[in-house]
């Protein structure tokens, strides 16, 4: 992975000093409240319902074990001994004090980490496929490009006061494991008919109040002009995005208002001034950054692999875990291991300091010292030799992270909701608890198969409910917390936004409705048909009928 040089280190160190001074002046009454709010957001610090919350950047989800250990230590020293992985591959601490944040940032800087621009109206963490660099279906590793975007966007002087936040995601394979079509900019690496690798650029995707699938604004962007083109998009957005209404300020609103063609032409006109200039990436720089991602010293396949047949017989649960939680690796003899942070004991995405230390040790022992976070709140050990899988599985059990539920109903995305978040309208963690209690039969979950349940506690959609196969949105109506169901969303290559099933459901009925929806699936599915495929085939009528008991075709 990328290693800091003296410039990278100087940047984070100076940023810590800068923020320490800002905190000092704020506490001395020298910075107005609303001004300090913007400054602290640009260093990842929210003031939440119960306590401040600090969001640490994990650039494109990649960490080394030492960094994970530091996160564990920070959680012990400054927090309550745990952390939370988010839908943008970042990590959050829920209980730091405002005064201690400069020290936390100082500790992070020692391990080449920071919280720069993880909030605020600026360019946020660039996210990507958690299987980048190791997946068999990859066109090209996205991580060097993510690193180039990270550098260009960090402390960019012109784009620190945008109309609103700005999120970029990069996908480099036939599947889209980065939800790139619901980002402000989605970049797709692909090979054109001439055999050249370049980017398709989508702009204006997003979730929240007004979910939109991103639109292609540039069909093929030459890789050397990646940064110049991004700069053109950001400049057009900075100058023209709405600033009168924060709910209408994202770039998706601008693209819709102008139309994708007009918007595209404005970007082209600005890009004319930039391309070929000092933002054009020389191949020397591209190659330098690519050089950090060349892959570890894999063992030869005959040393890495193992005949697992006996192990599967002796340990049937290991066979299940292998099937459910590991994926094909492009290197012979290796597997990608997904570690679900979705056990029955903790909130989805939460991880204790013991588990963080445990994962760091497992990364060192089994995966060349690196880990990744995913946008569905899980972790990945990307390079595990087959011969090590059984030992790894036993050790994951020791830290309660061996639940074989990746891709199942209980591998849900769940935002922290009303329990923590000052933006929330409804509780969500109670739902994940009830879902785990009700659907604790793993055989039932395996029979249901691939399904993505995504739960948000408010319309901001941090739980990505719009792109859940089943989406649940918590709302507040007349003083009560109720939940709206959507069906048929997807964040993959075939991206789609879920549609509302019917009227809101009371909190204690949510698991009942989920059960009813799954019953309909089991009754109507054809051989090998997934839940999403069924929804797209049969539509909503059977589900509405079951859940609402209506035989009418009109919307409930």
């Amino acid at each position, binding site marked *: 992975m990328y290693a800091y040089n003296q410039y990278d280190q100087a940047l984070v160190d100076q940023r810590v*000093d800068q923020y320490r001074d800002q905190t000092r002046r704020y506490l001395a009454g020298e910075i107005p409240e609303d*001004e300090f709010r*913007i400054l602290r957001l640009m260093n990842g610090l929210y003031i939440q319902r119960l306590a401040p919350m600090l969001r640490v950047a994990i650039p494109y989800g990649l960490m080394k074990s030492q960094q994970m250990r530091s996160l564990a230590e920070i959680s012990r020293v400054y927090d309550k001994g745990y952390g939370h992985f988010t839908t943008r591959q970042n990590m959050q601490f829920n209980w730091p004090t405002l005064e201690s944040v400069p020290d936390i940032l100082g500790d992070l800087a020692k391990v080449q980490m920071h919280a720069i621009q993880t909030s605020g*109206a600026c360019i946020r963490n660039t996210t990507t496929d958690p299987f980048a660099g190791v997946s068999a279906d990859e066109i090209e590793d996205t991580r060097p490009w993510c690193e180039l975007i990270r550098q260009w966007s960090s402390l960019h002087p012109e784009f*620190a006061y945008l109309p609103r936040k700005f999120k970029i995601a990069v996908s480099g394979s036939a599947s889209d494991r980065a939800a790139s079509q619901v980002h402000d900019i989605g970049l797709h690496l692909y090979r054109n008919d001439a055999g050249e690798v370049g980017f398709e650029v989508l702009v204006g995707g997003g979730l929240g109040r007004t979910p939109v699938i991103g639109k292609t604004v540039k069909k093929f962007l030459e890789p050397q002009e990646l940064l110049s083109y991004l700069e053109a998009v950001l*400049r057009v957005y*900075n100058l023209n995005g709405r*600033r009168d209404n924060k709910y209408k300020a994202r770039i998706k609103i601008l693209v819709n208002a102008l139309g994708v063609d007009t918007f595209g032409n404005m970007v082209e006109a600005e890009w004319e001034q930039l391309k070929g200039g000092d933002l054009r990436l020389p191949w020397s720089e591209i190659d330098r950054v690519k050089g950090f991602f060349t892959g570890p010293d894999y063992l030869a396949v005959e040393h890495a692999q193992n005949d697992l047949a006996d192990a599967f017989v002796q340990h049937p649960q290991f066979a299940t875990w292998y099937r459910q939680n590991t994926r094909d690796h492009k290197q012979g003899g290796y597997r990608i291991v997904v570690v679900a942070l979705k056990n029955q004991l903790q909130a989805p995405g939460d991880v204790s300091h013991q588990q963080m230390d445990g994962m760091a040790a497992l990364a060192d022992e089994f995966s060349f010292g690196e880990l990744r976070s995913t946008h569905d709140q899980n972790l990945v050990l990307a390079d595990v030799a087959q011969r090590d899988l059984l030992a790894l599985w036993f050790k994951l059990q020791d830290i309660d992270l061996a639940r074989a539920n990746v891709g199942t109903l209980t591998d849900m995305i769940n935002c922290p909701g009303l329990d923590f978040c000052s933006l929330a309208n409804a509780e969500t963690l109670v739902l994940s608890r009830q879902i785990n209690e009700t659907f604790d039969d793993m055989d039932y979950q395996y029979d249901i198969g691939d399904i993505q349940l995504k739960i948000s506690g408010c319309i901001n959609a941090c739980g990505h409910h719009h792109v859940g196969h089943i989406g649940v949105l918590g709302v507040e109506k007349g003083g009560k917390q109720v939940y709206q169901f959507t069906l048929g969303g997807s964040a993959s290559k075939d991206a789609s936004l879920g549609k509302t099933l019917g009227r809101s459901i009371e909190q204690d009925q949510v698991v009942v409705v989920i059960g009813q929806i799954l019953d309909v699936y089991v009754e109507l599915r054809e051989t090998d048909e997934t839940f999403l495929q069924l929804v797209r085939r049969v539509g909503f009528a059977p589900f509405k009928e079951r859940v609402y008991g209506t035989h009418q075709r009109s919307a409930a």
Partner: protein
Amino acid sequence: MALIKDQQLSLEHAATPELRFSDWLSDGPNSADAVLANGDDDLPSLLTHASKLSMIALEFDTFADGRGFSMARMLRRAGYQGEIRAVGDVAMDRIDFMQRVGFNAFELRDDQDVTQVLSKFGEVTVHFQPSADGKGPSYMA
């Protein structure tokens, strides 16, 4: 309101213009050589006429309005060499970015301590992107 110009406290300088760019356009381009503009103004028009102006004051109505950053950048890119003065909500925590994008004069908000403000120029010495100041990316120097 203290004015910082070329990274020093300025004791003698032209007053911030009150004449808005849009009025200057209708009054006729020779009526004055200094204007006040902001993100609502017609930027292409401002770029066209900039060479007739010795000073352009760009107004930050609230600190959240970031349009002035792009306007300054584009003025410098168009070759404008006159004074670009930041006025309005101008505070030390934005001064370094403002300078990077091409502002060279700063009319400070009343609560700002001049000495502290001056210390904020170059607060972060590493730059990962080119800007109007001709610096960066640091590692490519």
